Structure formats: C-alpha cells, structure tokens
C-alpha cells in the first residue's frame, strides 16, 4: 500500500462523522435504487439495450463525433476539440477571457473536475460560482467532490450548517436541510443573473440533432445556462448517442440507478445560441469535446469502461467505498468506476492501490446499468501492475514462492505438514490470536487454529486403512 493511499484510508477510517455521512447517503441511495428497479420489471431488458446502444456508439465513435459536430455547427454552436485536460482548460479559459468574463457560474460536471476547470478559472482570475448545492458546499469548504452524484456526501447536515453560518448572510436560521437549501437558493439567486459565462457538462451528446442533454434536479443548470452571454459545455467524447430516443433509453437507466427516481426534475436539451426572436438564452454556445485518455481506452482492455454513464451506483454498493468514502481514492472519480478510471487519468504508478483495494465481490457489476464488468477491469489493472513491476517486492516474492510449492503437489504436502505443525504452536484452545507474519489478520481478528493433519493426509490414511 503506497503511503499516501494508506494515510488517506487511515484518516477516513478514523473519522466517525464521515462514516455517518456515508451511511446516510449511500443507505438512502441503495434503498431507493432497489425500489425503482423493483418497480421497473423491464429493467433487465432496458439494461441490455443501454449496453448495446453504448457499444454501438463506441464501435462507430468517429462517425458519431463528426455527425454531432456537423449538426451542432449547423445549430450555431462552436465545436472545439481537446486531446487532453490542459487543452480543454485552455479552450474554456480563453473563451472566458476573450469575453472579458468576470463571473462564471458552473453547473455540476464531473468532466469539469476531471480536467481541472475550477483551478484553471481561479488561475485566470475569474470568479467561479458553483451553483449545484453540493458543489456550492464543497466550494465553501475548499474541497473536492467525494461522490459523482452527491459531491458533498462526506458532510453531515451539521457540518453543512457550520459552513453556511459563516458564508451566508444572513446565516440560515436552522440546521435542517430544508432551511439550508432555502438559504443557498437566496444567496445564489443574484449570482445566476449577473454571470457573464455559464459552464455546464452534458450527460448525452445527441448526434442527429447536435444538441447536448443534461439532467439535473435543482434547476440550477437552466439558471446557469440561460442568463449569461455565453454558454460553454464540456463533455467527454464517449457521451454520444445516435438520437434523442436513444438518450431516453439510457435516461431510464441513469436516473433509476443514480437516485432511484424515474426522471430527473429537469432534462434539458441545448442546441445552439439564442435565435432570432428568442425571449432569452445565451448569445454564444460552445462545446468542448474532450478525449483525455478515452481514445486510449478505446484501444486497450478498458474499452468497456467507455460505456459508463456516471450514475454512481457502483460506489453506493461498494463495501470499500462505504468505509473509506470518496476522498481516500485520491482521484476525480471514486469507487469502483474511479478505480478503473484513475489509473487511466493519473497513471498506474501512483494509483496502483485503487484496483487492488477491492474484494472482487462483484456487487458493482451487478448494479451497473450498462453492464460494465468492473471486477474484470480492476483485475486487468492488477495484471498490468504485476507485469510492469509495480507490485511491492514482498507481494511478488510471496506469491512467487507460494506458486513454486503449489505447482509441486508432493512438495506442497510436505510444506503443508510442516506449516501446520508450526502454525499450531501459536494457537491456544482452537484460536491463534497473534501470528507474526500475518499481523494484517491477527491485529483485528483471531485465526482458527489449523488442523493437526491436513485433509489430504487424513484422506490418504483412510484410503490405506480401507485397503
């Protein structure tokens, strides 16, 4: 375990308030998703269809990108392409600077986090106002998202109240979520109407119309994208779908898997800037199509991950996430999907713990609405890590030595016989409570004292006795 991951995990496990916050949100999410799926008997068929749609788009990605570009351009949208995060940041900040933008409102977008947009705007001297409630909370706290659907899920209502008390004028009158939501509504309302640029993400890019599709619950996205002069969308190139109907097929999966709802409150399609006679809307619309590792995934064993629609169900159902929370993962995306994506984005050398810190229990794949074989992909990273020599020397030596014995059954029996004799010396009345080379086990739990004679030895003795 690399030091930084170990430290982050230790900090998370030592924080009982964090655990309380995680349990409240993921517990709710798990229950609501289960109810939504139970209420949708066609879920299995819808999931197969969703997977097929994503696979189809991925198999014809160049075709759909060009089709989208053509149609978006025809609607008056300016389409930009960014090969990596740095290019994407530069495109967005340059648009803002060219427009002399002083205030930018942002509606939650994980891609924006992935490409480091918040910092880039600050570096360019532009005031950034996060308008999603959770993003507002973490902006006040100076933190990163800890969940892709509920970025502030690591904070309890009491902790949010503390933040709002100092940041909101006048401070909210009570600590209940309803009062605090009202307070944020009041504080952010004036910011919406005075922004120069609104930046959003996209859940889908509709190839045949050139529109973007974004789903939100709060209504902040519309208030972010409508009043400013300029609307910028940043989106990964894997977000394409052939048509609006295809987007709807995926939407049924996305919302149920994410929040347990059927539709988000607002499903918004944007196709270009304000038209002649329009009562409102931005004068310019820009879309930045971001690669940032996605074409690499297309070419390697992680292609299936391009199906991901960012619902967060995998993390809500992950035993590890539910113990350590999102920040311990150290990347933009946490949980099982993050453990597949972070090595792509940040490199395996600094993130090799993520694919390893998984019990391979498969619950993430079971709930994934587009059938991504997450454990298989995590195992693929482990394979690379082994091949590239990134696994720690003791692990390599241990597995190597064990394999030497396991491949020689006679030697293995001999070693087992000897090992059992030694192991039993550490035991008292059936249990071993401290074992020098297995402290990871015995620091926390007892180990059953092994048998005096192995099964194979007992069995052979019985066989001989029978004859």
């Amino acid at each position, binding site marked *: 375990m690399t030091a930084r991951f170990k430290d982050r995990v230790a900090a998370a496990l030592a924080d009982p308030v964090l655990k309380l916050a995680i349990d409240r949100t993921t517990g709710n999410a798990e229950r609501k998703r289960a109810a939504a799926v139970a209420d949708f008997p066609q879920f299995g068929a819808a999931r197969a269809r969703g997977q097929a749609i994503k696979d189809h788009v991925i198999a014809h990605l160049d075709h759909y990108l060009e089709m989208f570009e053509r149609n978006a351009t025809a609607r008056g949208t300016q389409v930009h392409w960014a090969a990596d995060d740095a290019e994407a940041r530069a495109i967005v900040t340059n648009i803002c600077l060219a427009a002399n933008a002083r205030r930018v409102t942002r509606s939650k977008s994980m891609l924006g986090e992935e490409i480091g947009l918040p910092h880039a705007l600050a570096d360019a001297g532009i005031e950034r106002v996060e308008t999603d409630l959770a993003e507002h909370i973490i902006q006040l706290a100076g933190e990163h998202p800890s969940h892709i659907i509920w970025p502030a899920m690591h904070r309890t209502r009491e902790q949010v109240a503390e933040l709002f008390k100092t940041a909101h004028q006048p401070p909210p009158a009570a600590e209940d979520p309803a009062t605090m939501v009202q307070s944020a509504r009041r504080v952010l309302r004036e910011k919406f109407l005075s922004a120069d640029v609104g930046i959003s993400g996209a859940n889908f890019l509709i190839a045949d119309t050139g529109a973007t599709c974004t789903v939100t619950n709060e209504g902040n996205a519309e208030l972010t994208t409508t009043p400013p002069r300029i609307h910028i969308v940043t989106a990964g190139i894997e977000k394409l779908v052939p048509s609006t109907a295809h987007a709807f097929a995926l939407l049924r999966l996305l919302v149920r898997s994410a929040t347990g709802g059927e539709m988000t409150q607002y499903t918004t399609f944007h196709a270009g800037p304000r038209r002649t006679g329009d009562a409102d809307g931005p004068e310019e619309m820009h879309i930045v199509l971001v690669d940032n590792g996605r074409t690499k995934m297309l070419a390697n064993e992680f292609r299936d991950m391009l199906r991901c629609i960012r619902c967060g169900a995998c993390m809500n159902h992950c035993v590890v996430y539910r113990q350590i929370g999102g920040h311990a993962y150290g990347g933009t995306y946490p949980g099982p999907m993050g453990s597949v994506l972070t090595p792509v984005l940040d490199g395996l050398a600094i993130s090799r713990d993520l694919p390893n810190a998984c019990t391979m229990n498969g619950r993430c794949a079971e709930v994934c609405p587009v059938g991504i074989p997450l454990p298989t992909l995590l195992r693929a990273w482990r394979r690379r890590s082994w091949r590239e020599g990134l696994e720690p020397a003791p692990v390599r030596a241990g597995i190597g030595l064990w394999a030497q014995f*396991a491949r020689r059954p006679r030697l293995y029996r001999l070693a087992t016989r000897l090992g059992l004799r030694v192991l039993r010396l550490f035991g008292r009345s059936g249990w071993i409570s401290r074992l020098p080379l297995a402290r990871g086990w015995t620091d926390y739990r007892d180990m059953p004292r092994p048998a005096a004679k192995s099964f194979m030895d007992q069995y052979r003795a019985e066989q001989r006795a029978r004859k």
Partner: protein
Amino acid sequence: MSAQPKPRVGLFVTCLVDAIRPQIGFAALELLEKAGCEVEVPQVQTCCGQPALNSGNDRNAALLARQTIAAFEGYDYVVLPSGSCAATMVHGYPELLADDPDWTGRARAMAAKTHEITSFLHDVLGYVPQGVRLEASATYHDSCSGLRDLGVAEQPRALLSHVEGLNMRGLPGNDVCCGFGGTFCVKYPDISNAIVTEKAEAIEGTGADILLAGDLGCLMNMAGKLHRRGARTRCFHTIEVLAGRAGGPAIGEEAS
C-alpha cells in the same frame, strides 16, 4: 436409478479446507456419496490459483490452471466446497487460457462440468437431505463469488430447509461482502476490518446460534472477528450441517 452408472466426481477440497478444516472435505465426500456419486480426491490438487489470479500474476495462475485441469478433466464432474474456487475454474481458467490453443478447449470443457457443492447437490443431483436434525437457530451469509459468479443463492437455503429443527433467520445485508477478499484482507487490513466489523454486528444482531456460509475464507474472516469480539456465534460451512456434522466442534473449537 441403479441402471445408470454412478457419476464420477473429482472432489477438489481447496487449499484452505485441506489445511484449516478438513471436516469440510469429509462432509463433502460423505454428502456426494450419499447422493449417489463415486467420489475421488485426486492427489495432484493443491490450490486453484486464485491468489495469483487476483494478484495479477497470470503466469502462475495459468500454470496452476493447467495442472488442475490435467488432474480433473477425466471426471464427469468437478465439485468444490467453495464458490470462489469453483468460480475461478468456471470463469477464471477459460479466461486465463483463452490464448493458448492447446488448453482453451480443455479449460472450457472443464468449466462446463465444474460445480460448487450445494448447487451440484441441489441442481444436478436433486439431492434432498433426510434424517438430519439440528436444534438451533442459524443465519446464512451469501459468499460473493458463489452468489454472483455462479448463482448460488437458493440451493443452500433449499437444502437447509430439510434440516429438522433448524430455524433459519434472515441476515440483514446477507449479500454484502464480509471483507475477506482473499489477499485483500492482509493487503488492506484496516479496510477489511471495518467491513467485517459491520458484518459481525449484523450477524450478532440476528441472535442466531450459528453462522453458515459456503466459503471457508469468508467463514474464517467472520468467525475470527466474531471470536475476537467475544461473540458466541458458532460458525460452520453449510455442508457440515447438511452432513449432520454440526454436533462436532465449530470453526475455532477443538474436540475435547
């Protein structure tokens, strides 16, 4: 019935059962024979290779896969008292050997006849336990690999429903991982401990006398945690109960 030859079963006891709790192997042997099988225990078996497979060390995993296939492919069925080792053979071997033309067909053929024991008894043999009695309350944890990779869920429960006197209690979060995860539990002991602590709390909360599961790794993890916490829950592999062996010492108990 007698007209048909007995199915020949190769029993893979698994490395953990071999070393830690041989009773499970004998329970398997007994049940399979009772259910009408001719059972053999090939001596070439060691470990299915899962530790290497899950560590990304495919080379060693593939070597063990070949060794195991060669030893077991002659049987009508390969049966294991473990969902995760069975899943390694059913899904892992064909994947590991997919690019090896000499072995890929053999791996797939073996995968097709490999079974976790409770699903084999229930689904393939239609076995119904008879005359097994245990006056106790018990709760059942669904070990992940068996549940998700092999669909082992109803079979153990159906078999256990024939044990007279056994009162099964639902375990909240029965399908949530116990935090064992093979090498995971020693590579990331703090996280594993946090997970198994919640599992132990849930088990204790049922008030059941006995915890049952189908994988010794998970059982050792849960039993070890329960014991460390001072809980009195006794832990057995499902098939020990089915074979009428739950009168003997539970995991961590020694015959007096």
